[in-house]
């Protein structure tokens, strides 16, 4: 029993952090002119990620992946979350785990084909991700399918979260590939929970750093208890969500019977931590917190998007209530 990243796992996490800070920094999301930008993942970024093997961490080696586990998957997506990485990264990664056919799988792993995420909304669908994506992934807790986007009619919508384009579509074409079972859903839940934990941590880091330098009434704001105490509460939320994330990742890696319940709990706690911490970070920054040039609002908006995929609050809590847990 060891519920923390070990030395090798830490190494992967820091390699991911370093790579993402260069290839996909959160600063890419700031609008430079009047109109809002949507900084979707373009082909060059996709191929850069693919070239490093990041889409295939949890894909077996014989299938062209790294042969690592859910744990490394979680560590990677926590870093993606810190940079408000687009959902495409996760969709791409899940598609790499879904495709059974070698050529299709290779093209996704290498980032040659892009994958967006489809989620049902009423009678139609929401399509989240780059308009350049050729494929779309739809995942439920029982099955997952991949759809071609070339013939699909979709309509663009203005997106609150600049990390992803948002479109609506009426009907789906026939799937290119599908896979029944819970694996893709569970990797998706874990990935989103990890991104949300990354957001919760990033929000905490931002305010802690600012509270050490900003002065009011002759003191650093970090010396005022009305600032210190909500920061401590943010730390508790992030800590709880992170510990549960580790537990869920290890449970999934080990194929434990109660992994689904631990994933639901991890997603729920990560939702609360990311949203709560982004909210508090904006408030404790004062005026600068509501400006576009600041990262706080990016964290909030991305958390709002991520909260709605791979289990909304209602679904998660509904399942969790009677879930049985092992020792």
């Amino acid at each position: 029993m060891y519920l923390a990243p070990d030395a090798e796992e830490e190494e992967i996490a820091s390699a991911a952090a370093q790579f993402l800070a260069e290839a996909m920094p959160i600063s890419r999301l700031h609008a430079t002119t009047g109109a809002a930008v949507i900084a979707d993942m373009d082909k060059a970024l996709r191929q850069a990620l693919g070239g490093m093997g990041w889409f295939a961490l949890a894909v077996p080696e014989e299938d062209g992946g790294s042969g690592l586990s859910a744990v490394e998957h979680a560590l990677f997506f926590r870093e993606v979350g810190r940079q408000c990485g687009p959902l495409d990264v996760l969709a791409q990664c899940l598609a790499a785990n879904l495709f059974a056919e070698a050529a299709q799988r290779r093209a996704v792993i290498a980032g040659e084909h892009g994958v967006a995420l489809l989620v049902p909304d009423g009678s139609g669908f929401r399509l989240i991700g780059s308009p350049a994506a050729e494929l779309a992934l739809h995942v439920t807790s029982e099955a997952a399918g991949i759809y071609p986007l070339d013939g699909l009619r979709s309509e663009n919508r203005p997106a609150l979260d600049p990390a992803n384009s948002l479109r609506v579509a009426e009907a789906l074409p026939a799937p290119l590939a599908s896979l029944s079972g819970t694996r893709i859903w569970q990797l998706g839940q874990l990935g989103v929970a990890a991104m949300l934990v990354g957001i919760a941590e990033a929000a905490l880091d931002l305010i802690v750093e600012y509270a050490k330098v900003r002065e009011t009434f002759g003191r650093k704001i970090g010396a005022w208890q009305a600032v210190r105490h909500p920061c401590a509460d943010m730390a508790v939320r992030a800590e709880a969500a992170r510990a549960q994330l580790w537990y869920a990742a290890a449970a999934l890696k080990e194929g434990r019977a109660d992994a689904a319940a631990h994933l639901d709990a991890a997603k729920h706690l990560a939702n609360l931590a990311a949203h709560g911490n982004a909210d508090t970070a904006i408030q404790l920054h004062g005026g600068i917190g509501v400006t576009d040039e600041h990262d706080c609002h990016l964290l909030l908006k991305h958390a709002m998007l991520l909260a709605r995929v791979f289990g909304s609050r209602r679904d998660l809590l509904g399942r969790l209530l009677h879930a049985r847990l092992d020792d």
Partner: protein
Amino acid sequence: MDLHFSEADVEFRARAREWLKANVPAETRPARGPESARFDRAWQRKLYDHGWAGVAWPKEYGGMGLSGLQQVIWYEEMARAHAPHHINTTYIGLMHAGPTVIARGTEEQKAFHLPRILSGEAIWCQGFSEPNAGSDLAALRTRGVVDGDHIVVTGAKMWTTDAQHADYQELLIRTDPGSERHKGLTWLICDMKLPGIEVRPIRTMLQDEHVNMVFYDEVRIPVADVVGEIGGGWSTAMATLSFERGLGFIGDQLELYERVGRAIDLAGRTRLEDGRLAIEDDGIAQRLASIKADTMAIRAMTLADIAETDRTGIPGPKGSMMKLLVTATHKALSEVVSDILGWDFLEFDGDRSAHPWTYEYLWSWVFSISGGTSEIQREITADRVLGLPKGR
């Protein structure tokens, strides 16, 4: 990262479960009075006789020397078996005084006190807080004057839990009359039967009298009963508190996990005023599930903490964050049960066994005030975990 229990751990769990199943007393703990302390002593004696006493104590001092993980297993099995709550009159001896004597005591002190604590023969209480020194412990004024081989103590302590039952007290006093704050303090073993000690109960909102004021009128305590150095009491006291901030609340942490399951069962058989089962109410169901997630995280944090302590060799400053989360979750659980039970929640006579949920609700303030208030835990987190500039 892995969740495997070793074979030895699995075997330990099975052994603990079996023993507890056969040995947890059938009768409930008397709510108050000397009978309650008698009950605690008897249970501790039973644990001792069967080799289950002092789970965190080193083996050389008669403890079990369990690893952090095995302590988790032990408390989980205690909660599962509905064993007597480990925060009872034996708590201070086992979780505070014993470990302090082990870390800082003389060989004579160890030889005399440790077996008595382990076997339930000696009950201890903690005399740190005073009427004007709680959060700000270093403001304490109870004074001791060295007179030959004795220290003569005069003053008052407040909030001393179980002083009326205690044989000994960990007593923190000021022995250097001109000293300020953290200097000039001394940590003493005080025999509660010494002349000049008066214990006066304080009745609490739980309808009980488990906390007290203790007055000292020229009480003569042998210098041989100083733990650590005369004047070095602050350092000894910080050692005492570090045991509590480490795994001191581990039992409560893990018990919550068990109790939320009981609350869900309760909601599944209790009808609301409108005739529906409580669990059919969306609001109640969602709050219960959310609290269940919190208790899962608390367990995960406990396990993560152990991994970190294993790696660094010292418990980190995260105990404060744990206490914040555990006390908030404890209160949230009590509040949702209040909504489940409706009017029944308002029936209370101070008996924890008869009215466990209402008792726990009232206890939630004791939990978030004693052992360092939530505000102080936030201060500690801000200072030591986040490194924010000091406000004080």
